[in-house]
């Protein structure tokens, strides 16, 4: 899910942050244990969220141990281990990374992706054997997405649908059943849609430059993409052309902003409602932070064209706090 789902760090308690780190490290260790050391390079914070929300639905306490790791060999860190939610998140993380690499080889013919996907292939096969229906759902929805992208579809709702369905299928772990599963699926649908659209909006610039498909470009500027073919590198583009590209980027951003903002807010509203219906057994405050602060913060940052910030230092700025929802006064 490309790392958009994160808590707003300045509002976290220290113990909450280290617990979240513990889940992240737990997923990384689980990847190494279950799918081999190379797969540990694929770990993302999205997988930590996946492990965290599924674990929050069960009453069992986390099994936390202090362990060292290669990135930080001197100081042992708390990690959450041998947790079914963490193992599940590791599996999903792996399969998503595998398809992402395959996709980037297909699109960009980047030889590193080919090599990396080749390395991950046996692990991906093992994952598909352990969770066959998850593997099938991911493959099916990504196939649908590829068809829509090839058709250059222009409806934002339609294009974001397969990815939303994908997240809806992977968000609830196998141990989540019944009513809670239905709620998690709806939360996942809206989260997936949110992620897809946030990603499309922040990629407008690079997609225009590379001539890649992007639903927002297709809808709002049908003649923007072939401004210059991708074979010409940025160095050779003369100034006039670059200005033309700049204006088309900002015009697409402006034209699409209202619709993008509307859909994103609708998704956030539904995520919030679904969250209220979940029976959260532990760690509720951190999940509240992600859902009511982290996601809106990312949304505002991205709409204002500052998608790259991670909310660490910027979160303390007055403007950033206003963007994140409400002005908290202060001096």
């Amino acid at each position, binding site marked *: 899910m490309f790392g958009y789902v994160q808590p707003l760090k300045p509002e976290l308690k220290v113990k909450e942050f280290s617990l979240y780190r513990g889940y992240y490290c737990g997923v990384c260790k689980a990847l190494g244990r279950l799918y081999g050391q190379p797969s540990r390079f694929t770990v993302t914070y999205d997988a930590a969220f996946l492990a965290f929300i599924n674990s929050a639905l069960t009453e069992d306490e986390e099994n936390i141990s202090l362990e060292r790791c290669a990135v930080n060999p001197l100081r042992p860190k708390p990690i959450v281990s041998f947790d079914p939610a963490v193992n599940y998140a590791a599996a999903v993380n792996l399969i998503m990374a595998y398809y992402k690499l395959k996709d980037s080889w297909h699109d960009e013919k980047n030889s590193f992706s080919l090599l990396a996907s080749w390395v991950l292939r046996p692990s991906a096969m093992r994952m598909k054997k352990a969770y066959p229906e998850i593997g099938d759902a991911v493959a099916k929805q990504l196939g649908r997405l590829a068809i829509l992208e090839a058709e250059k579809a222009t*409806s934002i709702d339609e294009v974001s649908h397969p990815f939303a369905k994908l997240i809806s299928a992977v968000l609830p772990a196998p141990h989540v059943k019944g009513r809670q599963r239905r709620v998690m699926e*709806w939360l996942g*649908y809206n989260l997936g849609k949110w992620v897809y659209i946030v990603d499309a909006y922040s990629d407008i610039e690079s997609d225009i430059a590379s001539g890649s498909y992007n639903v927002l470009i297709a809808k709002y500027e049908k003649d923007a993409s072939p401004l210059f073919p991708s074979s010409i590198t940025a160095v050779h583009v003369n100034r006039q052309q670059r200005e033309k590209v700049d204006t088309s980027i900002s015009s697409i951003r402006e034209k699409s902003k209202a619709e993008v903002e509307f859909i994103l807010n609708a998704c*956030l509203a539904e995520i*919030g*409602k679904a969250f209220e219906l979940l029976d959260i057994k532990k760690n509720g405050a951190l999940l509240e932070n992600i859902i009511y602060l982290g996601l809106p913060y990312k949304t505002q940052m991205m709409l204002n064209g500052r998608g790259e910030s991670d909310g660490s230092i910027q979160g303390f700025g007055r403007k950033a706090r206003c963007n994140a929802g409400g002005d908290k006064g202060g001096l």
Partner: protein
Amino acid sequence: MGVRPGATQEEIKEAYRKLVKKYHPDRFAGTDLEEVAKEKMQEVNEAYEILMGHRSNNGSYSDSSSSYGYSGGSVNIFQRVRERMRVGDFAQAEVLLDNIRDRSAEWYYLKGIILWRKGWYSEASSYLQTAVNMDPSNFEYRDALDRFNDSVNRYRQQQQYYHRTSRDDSDCCRLCAMLYCADCLCECMGGDLLTCC
């Protein structure tokens, strides 16, 4: 219901009121969550009735289900679509609807409701808006559009709620600043509020 054993009737009533507010199905209208909220509401009602020691439905929330059973148009096909929607088979309802050539206001309304349910917010908004524009006097269409917009805008209110209740340390600074101002004002007038400064 989240009350301690041996809670008083007042405490139970208070907890009940809070839960009714939280799980009221109207807050979750339009999507799959509505049914889940109804189930939760049902459980809360049962727990409340057991705790209060009577089985009458007096004073407890009762379901005012919004049905799609309204039969305004004489066109039979729309009734079949509404029937599918009523039993929760939205996929089949959409197939039926897509086969209809005659795109009246009712068609746009029903399609809008189905898209809303599916999570296609931008499309749902424009279909519902079209239905209202085509037939501005129809209360049902206008009501659906209002409910849709209300449901989308609710997020902002929730956010403000979170901010009000979250821990906030700036109040202390504000209090100091106000005391300082009050002290300065008093000193201007010849008095003194805080003798130390």
